[in-house]
């Protein structure tokens, strides 16, 4: 049965999409069947995987709106055998208006995950939009775990405080089993004293809720994106590839322990 993980942070540019894509690929490389779900109306993940989001007949937005349209019908294959994707849709920008931010609309996504779909995958990774609106709430409601990517800087911390409130609200009202798997430090620049000190403090205060893996700043990660590739496809020996392989191992270890 699939473990569903949301990659969440309402702050933009912290590496949510990069993490979803590369972690997904790393897990797939380790013989896991992985489904990526792009809930971000910016559609970056889908575009990177070569999908023309405007050309889809039915989209994730239609599934959320129409209870009878199965999620399985909009899954797309990628070049990797073990990696599939549910693309984002432009209409998701209007999701807030369509599904007002109330808890009766919080389970639209979880309801669409059928058991048979969950049995087809080992991991489902949800790339969330940079907001704490109804799409993120739906992702949290459907998930077993949350991964919070953050840059080791003060603005990132303000965001996490707000995210925790939403997380607590969803856990209380809709999904009691939701758990924070960990905060993932991204874009860490070892040359900056601020990043070093902040990382030490994050480890001190968050204790086990921080991944041991740190995603270090790496030009290859950005270059890979420009080429619509994961860092593994672009340059498998790059530091970014090693970081995401180690993250995948940590995620698998965490899930195995819980089982």
């Amino acid at each position, binding site marked *: 049965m699939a473990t569903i993980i949301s990659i969440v942070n309402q702050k933009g540019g912290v590496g949510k999409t990069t993490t979803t894509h590369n972690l997904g690929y790393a897990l797939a490389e380790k013989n896991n069947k992985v489904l990526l779900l792009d809930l971000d109306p910016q559609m970056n993940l889908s575009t990177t995987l070569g999908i023309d989001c405007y050309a889809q007949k039915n989209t994730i937005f239609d599934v959320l709106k129409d*209870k009878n349209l199965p999620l399985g019908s909009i899954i797309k294959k990628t070049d990797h055998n073990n990696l599939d994707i549910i693309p984002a849709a432009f209409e998701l920008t209007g999701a807030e208006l369509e599904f007002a931010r109330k808890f*009766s609309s919080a*389970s639209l996504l979880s*309801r669409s995950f*059928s*058991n*048979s779909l969950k049995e087809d995958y080992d991991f489902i990774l949800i790339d969330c939009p940079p907001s704490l609106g109804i799409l993120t709430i739906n992702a949290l409601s459907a998930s077993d775990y949350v991964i919070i990517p953050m840059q080791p800087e*003060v603005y990132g*911390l*303000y965001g*996490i*405080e707000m995210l*925790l409130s939403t997380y*607590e609200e969803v*856990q209380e009202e809709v999904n*009691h089993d939701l*758990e*924070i798997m960990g905060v993932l430090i991204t874009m860490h620049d070892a040359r900056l*004293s*601020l990043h070093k*000190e*902040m990382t030490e*403090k*994050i480890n*001190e*205060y*968050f*204790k*086990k*809720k921080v991944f041991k893996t740190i995603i270090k700043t790496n030009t290859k990660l950005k270059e890979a994106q420009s080429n619509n590739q994961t860092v593994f496809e672009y340059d498998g020996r790059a530091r970014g590839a090693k970081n995401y392989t180690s993250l995948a191992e940590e995620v698998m270890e965490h899930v195995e322990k819980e089982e």
Partner: protein
Amino acid sequence: MSKKKNRLGSSEEILSKIGSRMSSQNSKKKTEDENKNDNSSDKNEEKNNDQQENSSNDEKKETEAVNNSWLDEQKPYRSSFIVKPDMEDNFEDCKRKFRKELRMNLSKQNAIELGWLLLKKLDKEYFSEVKRVSSPDDDLVESLKKIIKEFA
């Protein structure tokens, strides 16, 4: 004398707040899990005592339950059917919620899930009939409303 720069500023205060919220989440979950385990081990102890006396009866009932399991009968429909485990534990709350939500704008899927849970739990003849002739994919809301009215 050179003074060490405070690069983190107010960050440490925020970190400490977030850290304690995360750890309180952790301990809350741990306690819940422990309580669950305690309850199930108590139940198991009671069961063990009873089991010795009623082992032959239990075997009979088990065989019957397996034969009559509506889940087995409805196997083809199980893929679209999810009942949260806590609903199994808090059946009364679940029933109340179901009645309440039927008066409100209950989504079809929720109604079906809760309705099937009721059908599973309550062994009345009427329910058995519904169980026999319906599946979780049918539009059960109307017939379930009738059932609830009857037993409310």
